[in-house]
């Protein structure tokens, strides 16, 4: 049985990211960068109606324009489009300019239909139906556990609150898209994806070709965050354009397309009531919530079914009543988004935790220690509070003097993670070089580096001696990268693989010791043929479940409403830390994405026209360098648990911690994300509540 080495030189070290040199020099070729011979530019025409019956699309004029090599319909025949931006047709041409002209030349006949794009409007029974066969919203049946009504009567304190979170857009910097090339009946797709195998299977199904005739390559990809698992409508269109034009087609979405049609995090509107007994123990919890996943499941690839989230989040409450619902609107469908469901769940629950703690006059950290069932988080809270200086910094809400008020807050998170089902192969050459192949993909999370440092430690080599090949369906299979499962899936397979390499090399070379300084001598004994060795994921090398807590310190300008996050302290369970450097980068990244969710990000739909009002970065605000707080990260090393994933848990509690810090600073809660200056001023009674 393979096991993690006791003595670790590179595992858990600050060993550098192996593909960093390629990424800082422009040598890294992303799917959007590849240029197969004779490639054409591809673009998609999208619906300008939020809802319409499309009666006719005429591609003839467009197809005849100079430089245009193919034009295809997204779907044949009459159809209904259900959101602004739904795909209608696509063109391929010699240049982007030719395609832009062609899109304008496509004639579309449509009958606009009534639409609804905002949750609160869609809940009205009189609102236009997104799907004819079902209402946009059905009042959910509450599910009870325990005797909730009686339990509320037994509470020493009860609070009620309304908390909301926006639709958030993934916005990976590399948009969705593919470069697709046919050779006879075989297709190669350079895809910007989190799942090369899921794209292969999706394309094969969509185009009705056997899976063994589809090869998907993704050597580098510019971010996904949950939105890039399948080929998408854009992938199928690129393949059909390429087939029609008999040339490779590169079809990357525009930023505008990205904001409309390829996923988002559902919104949430949470009415919560919660009570605790006199000893500060949570006793009763009641949630009524709704949110939108856009048009919802079914019609958009990767669509997520609804807007439900785990409740009550992370804490154990003996008596609960939960009623959650999704509201359909005429907007792009939701998809998995970094820790699906969890950031909204955390925001609602952790907000009311603080509101209840304040009412009961219990310190918020102490209140969590009394109610959090996780032993790991208990320790993390104690360590974090000490490191953050919680005792010195925490003051009664709203007591910070002066116009710029400071406040602190905290929140916790849980994520399942866990691994499985990955295979890998090593080719050891007689000259001592080694190549490891694995059909996983590196989203920028450091998967290649993980493979290199594990192989280096097990084989007694240096990480730079390991040639790591990932992102190709010709390599042994691994799963898609979602759920923080990549590291715990891939790392054990590499451990097993390298253990097998050592055994095989011993056998073939006749040498007892083949690691490190003996490696080259052993390889030379292979003669002419390289050694090909396989390995696969094994039990006992990875773990599941990750817990973390975060503390936030903010300064809020009560004259302007501007919130500045001054500091985040993050204590994160790391399991067996494989690559400290890339792990830490991911923790930073999760916190920063959480900061954007807390303060800036929100999809804004216009109820009158049905269009998305902020499709690009001048209006959809992302955090920037100057917004960065001091970030203090502590990784808890728990090697006995094996390898876990941390990409998702670290983004969950940030917004809740920031929200609690703002409430602590102001003495009033801003219960709606993002916490904009307008909402802060409204909470202070200085301006009217924003619409």
């Amino acid at each position, binding site marked *: 049985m393979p096991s993690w080495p006791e003595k670790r030189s590179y595992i858990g070290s600050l060993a550098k990211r192996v593909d*960093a040199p390629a990424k*800082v020099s422009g040598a890294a070729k992303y799917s959007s960068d590849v240029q197969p011979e004779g490639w054409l530019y591809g673009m998609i025409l999208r619906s300008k109606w939020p809802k319409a019956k499309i009666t006719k699309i005429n591609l003839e004029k467009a197809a005849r324009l100079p430089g245009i090599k193919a034009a295809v319909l997204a779907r044949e025949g009459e159809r209904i489009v259900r959101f602004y931006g739904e795909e209608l047709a696509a063109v391929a041409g010699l240049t982007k300019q030719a395609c832009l002209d062609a899109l304008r030349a496509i004639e579309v006949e449509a009958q606009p239909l009534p639409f609804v794009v905002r949750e609160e409007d869609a809940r009205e029974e009189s609102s236009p139906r997104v799907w004819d066969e079902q209402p946009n919203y059905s009042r959910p049946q509450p599910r009870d556990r325990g005797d909730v009504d009686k339990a509320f009567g037994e509470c020493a304190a009860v609070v009620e609150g309304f908390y909301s979170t926006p639709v958030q857009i993934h916005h990976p910097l590399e948009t969705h898209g593919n470069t697709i090339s046919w050779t006879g009946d075989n297709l190669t797709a350079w895809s910007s994806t989190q799942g090369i195998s899921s794209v292969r299977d999706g394309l094969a199904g969509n185009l009705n070709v056997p899976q063994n005739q589809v090869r998907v390559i993704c050597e580098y990809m510019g*971010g996904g965050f949950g939105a890039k698992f399948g080929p998408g409508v854009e992938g199928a269109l690129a393949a059909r354009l390429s087939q029609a034009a008999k040339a490779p087609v590169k079809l*990357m979405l525009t930023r505008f397309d990205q904001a409309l049609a390829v996923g988002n995090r559902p919104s949430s509107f949470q009415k919560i009531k919660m009570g605790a007994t006199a000893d500060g123990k949570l006793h009763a919890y009641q949630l009524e919530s709704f949110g939108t996943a856009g048009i919802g499941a079914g019609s958009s690839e990767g669509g997520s079914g609804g807007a439900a989230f785990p409740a009550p989040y992370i804490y154990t409450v003996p008596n609960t009543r939960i009623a959650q619902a999704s509201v359909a609107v005429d907007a792009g469908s939701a998809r998995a988004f970094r820790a699906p469901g969890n950031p909204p769940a955390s925001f609602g629950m952790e907000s009311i935790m603080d509101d209840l703690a304040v009412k009961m006059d219990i310190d918020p950290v102490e209140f969590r220690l009394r109610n959090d069932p996780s032993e790991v988080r208990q320790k993390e809270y104690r360590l974090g509070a000490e490191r953050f200086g919680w005792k010195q910094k925490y003051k009664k809400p709203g007591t910070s003097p002066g116009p710029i008020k400071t406040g602190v807050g905290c929140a916790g998170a849980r994520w399942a993670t866990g691994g499985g089902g990955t295979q890998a192969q090593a080719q050891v050459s007689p000259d001592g070089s080694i190549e490891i192949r694995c059909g996983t993909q590196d989203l920028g999370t450091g998967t290649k580096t993980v493979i290199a440092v594990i192989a280096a430690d097990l084989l007694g080599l240096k990480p730079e001696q390991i040639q790591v090949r990932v992102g190709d369906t010709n390599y042994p299979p691994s799963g898609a990268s979602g759920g923080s499962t990549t590291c715990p899936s891939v790392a054990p397979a590499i451990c097993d693989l390298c253990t097998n390499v050592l055994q095989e090399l011993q056998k073939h070379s006749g040498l007892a010791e083949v690691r490190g300084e003996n490696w080259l001598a052993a390889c030379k004994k292979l003669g002419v043929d390289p050694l090909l060795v396989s390995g696969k994921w094994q039990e006992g090398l990875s773990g599941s479940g990750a817990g973390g807590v975060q503390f936030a310190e903010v300064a809020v300008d009560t004259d302007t409403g501007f919130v500045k996050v001054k500091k985040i302290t993050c204590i994160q369970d790391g399991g067996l830390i494989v690559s400290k450097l890339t792990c830490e980068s991911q923790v930073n990244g999760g916190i920063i994405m959480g900061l954007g969710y807390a303060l800036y990000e929100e999809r804004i739909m216009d109820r009158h026209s049905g269009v998305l009002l902020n499709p690009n970065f001048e209006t959809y605000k992302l955090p920037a360098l100057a917004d960065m707080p001091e970030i203090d990260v502590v990784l808890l090393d728990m090697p006995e648990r094996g390898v876990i994933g941390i990409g998702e848990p670290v983004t969950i509690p940030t917004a809740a911690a920031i929200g609690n810090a703002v409430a602590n600073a102001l003495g009033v809660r801003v219960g709606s994300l993002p916490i904009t200056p307008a909402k802060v001023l409204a909470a202070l009674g200085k301006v009217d509540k924003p619409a």
Partner: protein
Amino acid sequence: MSDSTKQDCLTVSRRAFLKTFGTSAAVAATAQVEAVAEELQKANQEKIYGPETVPITLQVNGSPIKLQVEPRVTLLEALRNHSHFTGAKEVCDRATCGACTVLLDDLPIYSCSKLALEAQGHAITTVEGLAENGQLSKVQQAFIDEDALMCGYCTPGFVMSVTALLKKNPHPTAEEVQHGCAGNLCRCGTYPRVLRAALKAAGVPLTSQTEVISYAKLA
């Protein structure tokens, strides 16, 4: 004004308007009109490009690149789609994210918002052109050392912005780095490390950041 004249007025181009203006009204010799006449002369000297493709020459990383492109092609497209310089990335295509940053002479610019035609006659440096004799630049090396990248899609833009900053200001403060990178966005969240990398490339000593604490030893 007859209908046909009205029509002419509506369809007349700015250039034709200036020409008409020049031959009739500019006769009145006021200072203002002289200025207009001067403007007109300049306009008449301007070469009219397009809509057909035109030959252009770009000086990219020290070598001339000859292309045949429509005048509306941006420098970013010329680099990425009409030649092989794919280091600069297209992310927003409207000057909001900085992933397409290149140096025009020593000035960092958004190549998505500069016409290729107008970039002629300038020294264009892309991220591919920073290494010298196979040796990565100080800034590039600092990005590697500090892990100032994740997916890497924004990285060429940040590398170019920091390079431009250090050319102008070899010893920036943290605030000056923030300002120098204010035009660049990252979605993975590499900012804290970009800051460290920029300071490191400027020779500022850094202290270690993250701590790993053994869970087993916690109380």
